[in-house]
């Protein structure tokens, strides 16, 4: 998988490159700002872009570049955004632009090698990866959530993993249960919440997040 890494901080950039490389991905270029990123994508045509949300020329240049890339290369380019903001809203913005190939990770996640590599792989192959902390914000809050009260705690856990963008297999591995079990639990969840069951992992991520984020 061919990757371009964009971050204005050299330390972060180098760290990410090292982790991805040691996980077997091919980092073909590095960018220091949004403009450079766009140019390099045009030249190298990578499968995945890892981009910091906040980059020069200023403000949310990284996020804006990520959205543009999604618009310009739907389905063929995965965009993994690194952010220091625990705001589900940013994730939603990216997800709503279409299906597949979107990730939103918190910056400190880069120190967790396996998480980063897995997320990169997932997004580069057209899947989704939402940082568990972001999902936490939405699902696993202390507050008594009426909408989720009808779910068992197991179901809620599964819901969280769905929201992260994991596939059924990935969920089964994480919980150490059979694939069939996961599938039936998911079916139950979706019917309880009144959501359309969907074979497409990305669509269901969006559906779940939208459901959770929905302000009554």
């Amino acid at each position: 998988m061919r990757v371009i890494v964009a971050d204005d901080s050299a330390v972060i950039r180098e760290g990410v490159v090292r982790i991805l490389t040691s996980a077997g991905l091919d980092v073909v270029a590095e960018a220091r700002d949004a403009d450079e990123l766009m140019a390099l994508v045009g030249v190298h045509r990578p499968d995945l872009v890892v981009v910091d949300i906040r980059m020069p020329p200023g403000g949310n240049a990284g996020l804006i570049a990520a959205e543009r890339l999604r618009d310009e290369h739907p389905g063929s380019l995965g965009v993994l955004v690194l952010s220091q903001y625990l705001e589900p809203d940013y994730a939603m913005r990216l997800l709503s632009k279409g299906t597949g190939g979107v990730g939103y990770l918190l910056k400190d996640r880069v120190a967790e090698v396996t998480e980063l590599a897995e997320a990169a792989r997932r997004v580069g192959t057209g899947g989704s990866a939402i940082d568990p902390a972001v999902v936490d914000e939405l699902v696993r809050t202390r507050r008594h959530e009426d909408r989720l009260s009808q779910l068992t705690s197991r179901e809620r856990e599964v819901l969280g993993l769905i929201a992260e963008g994991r596939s059924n297999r990935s969920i089964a591995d994480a919980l150490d249960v059979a694939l069939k079990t996961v599938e039936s639990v998911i079916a139950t969840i979706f019917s309880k919440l009144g959501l359309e069951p969907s074979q497409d992992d990305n669509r269901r991520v969006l559906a779940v997040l939208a459901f959770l984020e929905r302000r009554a």
Partner: protein
Amino acid sequence: MEQRRWLAGAAAIAFAGVTAVVGASQGAPLTFLVLDTATGLIFIGAGLVAWHRRPEVATGRLLVAAGALWFVGSYGATAIPPLASLGNALASYYDVLLAYLVLSFPGGSLSAAYRAAIGAILAGFLVRTAARLFVLDLPTLFPEFCAECPPNPFVIIPSRPLLEVMELAGNASITVGALAVIALAVGRWNGAQPGARRVLRPLLAAGMVAMLAAGMDAAETAGSIVGVRIPEYPPPLGEIVGWAPFVARTLIPIGFLIGTLRLHMAGGPLATLAAGLGTAPPGIELETAVRTALGDTSARVLTYEPQLGGWIDSSGTAAELPSEDSRRAITILGSEDSPRAAIVHDPILREDPSLVSAVSGVLLLAVDNERLTTEVRRQLAEVRASRSRIVDAADSARKRIERDLHDGAQQRLVAVALALQDARAEAARAGASPEILERLDATAEELRAAVHELRELARGIHPAILTDEGLAPALATLVRRAPLDVRLEIELKDRESAAIESTAYYIVAEALANVARHAAASHASVSVQKQDGALRVEVSDDGRGGASTAGQGGTGLRGLADRVAAVNGTVDVVSPPAGGTRVTAVLPCE
């Protein structure tokens, strides 16, 4: 002066009373007595009023004297010799006084023409008096029809030809003088300044009629001597002509009273003046109002500007304070060394000093009010601007801190986490003991917690998403993180200014924090709407109530009050005990 007035008034009225009694004892008819006395009393009454109003001017005293002289003439009809002669001789001198009054009112000096006219009348009267006192003796000179008339004790030369000459000369002089006065009065009528007309014209009219009567009377007497007999008027015209002199002379004091009353009545417009002055700045409108109130369309209002060290007129241009003369009087408001305003008006308005002073008072109020209002507005604007600047500065500082934390400390910690990660990997490869690896893992965990805390801190200082995306997502996060169920209703089409958005955000944040801390509520709701150009933010809960901006619960909201005021908004807390709490803020957007 007041004592003298009371004395003079009392004496005059007493004299009137005595004369009436004497007349009654002499058999005078009742109607005559009533009218005669009434006329004289009107003179005296008007005179006393004028004397009270303007003690410094002769008008009042002249009128009172005229009233007294009126009654002197009444004695001419009695049968008591000395009184009858004196009465006859001194009759009608009030005409001289009245002529003087009519021409000189309101108290200026007379020009040569006026003096000549009055002089002619006076001379005529003197000659006539001399004739009637020292030459006329009725029983001696007119035995054919006046043998029983009372004799004249003062007679010196009883001679009919002399009498006729003197009467002729005297009356002719009076007639000429009267006509001259009428002509001059007409001139005055036409030349009266706008401010003076209201008072002057009734007086002049009355004066002219009176002079006409006096002139006709004298002419008749002169004519009869020369042999020109004015035919008797057939009744009822004859009756009217007979009464005309009375009525005519009575008109003078009445005219005078009417004039000064009209001046006084101008108090009506004063109320309008005062009401309209609330908003009228010293300017054209004010000047117009003053003109109406004073009844002087030539009046001008000048205001003193201390910064310029000079006067400005109603249109705001610099002006000189005019000097007083016969056409202009100046009333200065304020003190000598710090004048505030001035009214330039017709001198006749001095007849009613209370009017001028009342208008002055109201004018001064307006001038001061305007000055104070301008000053207050200016200061208020300065305070608002200053407050706004402070709040903006605080907000910028917070954003800067958040950005610095993000770009600085947070980033650094992530870099440290990466380095730590590398170190752990190295250590594992190099065969470090499980304890070491565990310690490194624990450190990594600590680091993660630190990053998390820093992230929360940064968001508490200023949530970046508020700047980037606006109120809706920022409030959604607040609401989501609240420890109780909160319903959020927000429908905003556009973004507002940074100041408004951050104020709204902090209000909700503070209110929700209070709910979590104190209210023991189970449900809360937040609603943000744009209504009539203002953002309306409401946070309500179903908890304990009893919150206020005072007390521990309130310090947070109180601290917001300044910020809310800086954007010209209002915030208010309704919190009946056990009735929940509602915080409502209205923030006007431009």
